[in-house]
């Protein structure tokens, strides 16, 4: 009964209108590289205070879900992740575009993002408290082993040459040490510049490495005689067949489960989840060689992962009042502005409001489905414009996006340097994925390792006494040796 009321509440014209406004603006914010979901929600939060709570939240939830989904659009079309959560979508998505299947790739992004979002909403309804309590078990030692497990994915995201992948991966780890160290506040490689105190900013680095790097590479390899069109858009295949859909189901179900858990763990978000899931799915796939070359499974998994994180993050926020990621941290702030404190008592005190929130989450995903499928025919049209025009537009977006994230010119410089670095990597046939993974996980690994050791006064046993640590360490070792075991098994079978 309460549920029916909650859904009817969201379907009120006024509330629904704000939900749609949220989805549409989130679609624009997410698709522009550098404008992240966090930023979209942060910018719209002050506006939401002028509205009734249910209207304000409908808008914020719409932006949050839609920006994460739309991040995949630019990842697929121009090889630049719109938000960090869609880094893994560039691996297969952009390859599909180059092959002329951009419409198919965009539809996969929409359908699987929505499925991921809906799956995580269901988890939020049924398992909110158990999930949140599991997430609380994550202390410094557990984070350390989680980061280690994430790093084992470096091999998976390396492409054909693991040695090259590991080289750039460890370079990424090295770059993650720039800035104040998180335990002693000691300045490392800051060149006495206050802008470097917080380290190299992740988003501009990502935009430069993927976006600018790709553009420079295209300019470098383009033939002046060539017809300056990026890719033929083959209109024939736009949707997956039911059979293909069935084939992709197991990998995506597993991805959904992993991502909801990662989302529930505070501090680990869509960026980590999508890379871990992509690497894991590759290992378990029957066709790992297709991953990174335009695998439908690879793309679908990365799309499911980043949106399934949302339900997980909302779980910890609503049931414990702890932010599951940067966006939910802002949402907690706005809940407090409305006089509500997220946490177990909110489930009781403002119960109808929580139901409304979940109903908004589900409806936002349905709106994204419609919006995404109708616009997937329009987006690829931008690929039909002249290459040179597209290059200029993408470079401009990259510059604006990297400035906007912190309003800092230093970020533009970082983005440009990262772009040149990304170009060199492309020319020398080094993968960019491991570098970004090293930068992403380096801080998490270092700060938590040292934090765990300062808790125990330097005793390493903390990593072998917690069940979560043992499991994570075991699967890390297993995922490293699995390829060679697989080879041996194949040999024996043959």
């Amino acid at each position, binding site marked *: 009964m309460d549920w029916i009321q909650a859904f009817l509440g969201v379907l009120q014209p006024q509330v629904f209108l704000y939900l749609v406004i949220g989805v549409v603006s989130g679609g624009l914010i997410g698709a522009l590289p550098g404008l992240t979901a*966090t*930023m979209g929600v*942060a*910018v719209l*939060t*002050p506006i939401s205070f002028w509205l009734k709570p249910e209207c304000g939240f409908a808008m914020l939830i719409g932006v949050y879900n839609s920006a994460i989904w739309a991040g995949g659009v630019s990842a697929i079309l121009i090889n630049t992740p719109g938000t960090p959560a869609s880094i893994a979508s560039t691996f297969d998505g952009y390859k599909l575009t180059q092959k002329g299947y951009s419409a198919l790739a965009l539809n996969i992004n929409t359908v699987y993002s929505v499925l991921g979002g809906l799956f995580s909403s269901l988890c939020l309804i049924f398992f909110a408290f158990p999930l949140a309590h599991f997430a*609380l*078990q*994550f*202390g*410094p030692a557990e984070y350390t082993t989680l980061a280690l497990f994430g790093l084992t994915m470096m091999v998976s995201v390396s492409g054909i040459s693991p040695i090259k992948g590991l080289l750039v991966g460890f370079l990424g780890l090295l770059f993650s040490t720039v800035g*104040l160290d*998180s*335990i*002693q*506040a*000691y*300045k490392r490689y800051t060149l006495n510049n*206050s*802008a470097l*105190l*917080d380290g190299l900013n992740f988003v501009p680095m990502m935009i430069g490495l993927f976006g600018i790097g790709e553009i420079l590479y295209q300019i470098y390899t383009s033939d002046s005689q060539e017809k300056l069109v990026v890719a033929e858009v083959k209109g024939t295949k736009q949707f997956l067949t039911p059979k293909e859909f069935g084939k992709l189901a197991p990998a995506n179900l597993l991805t959904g489960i992993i991502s909801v858990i990662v989302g529930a763990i*505070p*501090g680990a978000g869509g960026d980590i989840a999508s890379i871990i899931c992509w690497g894991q799915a590759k290992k378990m796939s029957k066709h790992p060689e297709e991953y990174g070359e335009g695998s439908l499974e690879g793309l679908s998994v990365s799309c499911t992962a980043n949106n399934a994180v949302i339900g997980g993050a909302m779980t910890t926020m609503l049931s*414990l*009042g*702890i*932010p599951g990621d940067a966006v939910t*941290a*802002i949402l*907690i*702030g706005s809940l*407090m*502005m409305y*006089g509500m*404190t*997220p*946490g*177990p*008592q909110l489930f009781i005190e403002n119960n109808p409001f929580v139901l409304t929130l979940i109903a908004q989450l589900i409806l936002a995903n349905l709106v994204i489905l419609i919006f995404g499928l109708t616009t997937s025919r329009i987006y690829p049209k931008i690929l039909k414009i002249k290459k040179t025009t597209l290059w200029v537009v993408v470079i401009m977006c990259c510059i604006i996006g990297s400035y906007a994230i*912190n*309003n*800092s010119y230093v970020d533009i410089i970082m983005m440009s340097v990262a772009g040149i670095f990304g170009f060199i990597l492309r020319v020398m046939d080094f993968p960019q994925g491991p570098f970004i993974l090293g930068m992403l996980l380096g801080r998490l690994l270092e*700060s938590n390792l040292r*934090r765990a050791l*300062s*808790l125990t*006064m330097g005793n390493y046993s903390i990593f072998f006494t917690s069940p979560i640590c043992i499991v994570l360490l075991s699967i890390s070792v297993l995922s490293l040796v699995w390829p060679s075991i697989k080879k041996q098994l194949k040999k024996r079978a043959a």
Partner: protein
Amino acid sequence: MRRRIFLTLLVLLAVGSAFAQAKYPTKQINIVVGASAGGTSDTVTRFLAKDIEAQLGVPVVVTDKPGGSCSVAFEYMAAQKPDGYHLMYMPVESAMVKAMGFTQLEPKSVRYFAHAMFLPATVTVNSKSPWKTFNDLIAYAKANPGKVTVGNSGTGSIWHFAAVGIEQVCGVTFNHVPFDGGAAAATAVMGGHVDVATVAPGEVLAGVKGGYLRVLAIVDTKRSALYPDVPCFKELGYDVKILAWGAFAAPAGTPDSVISVLEAAFSKAIQSQGFQDLCVKYGFTPGYMDAKDAQAFAESQARWYQEEVPKLKLK
């Protein structure tokens, strides 16, 4: 004739500039915040900006430039034209960054024109913890030096100093564990990974209401409106040395006439009922000070941290 024209022009110029000064503000005012959107600094500034906008009749735009405990924004603001159109929210960190070696700037380098509020630390433990009162905790810490793990919001952050201040006044030694922000430290206490967190009242509110956390004391001279039943440090017989705070400043050289316009507008906004209500919701202690007092206070804080930071022996 020439002389006459010259004199007329001179008079016109003088009148014109006086007129221009009297007319401040005539265009958009920018306030920079040295932290990310959604945090305490950002929330307070955006809230007050709306009020200032209505009072002065010009747009007031808030921009976040996070980095280096506010030193990135501090350096940006100090380098702007001192015309009253570039202001900054000054958190307690503005008095600490020079001592920490993040920047050469200090409160003396700029003009504070209003002090908004204070923010006390809480002493928070897990609800399953054996310590029911603050004295239980101190008794245990005295018997077991260095055993109690205390989570703070980062080395050299204000909540790290809060824990150090407790050590000093209570004569105990903690094992300090820095986290990435106060919320992360509170979460670690909820999960039982550290014993105590010394973070802001708002950061532990959800955990306390949900029955996961217990606040043992408020490090302040008054009780907190969010936790009326929890004793404050003064009641417990301890001296309070460390509080977080928030103020506003403009670049050095901003003319007095401009400062007085800003002072009047911010005084009204900070003492408005709306801001007082916001303070109650987030657990801040309202504490308006005018330009002179805000400047003196910030400078005295900077002197204190200049002495205390080297004692941490970070390097």
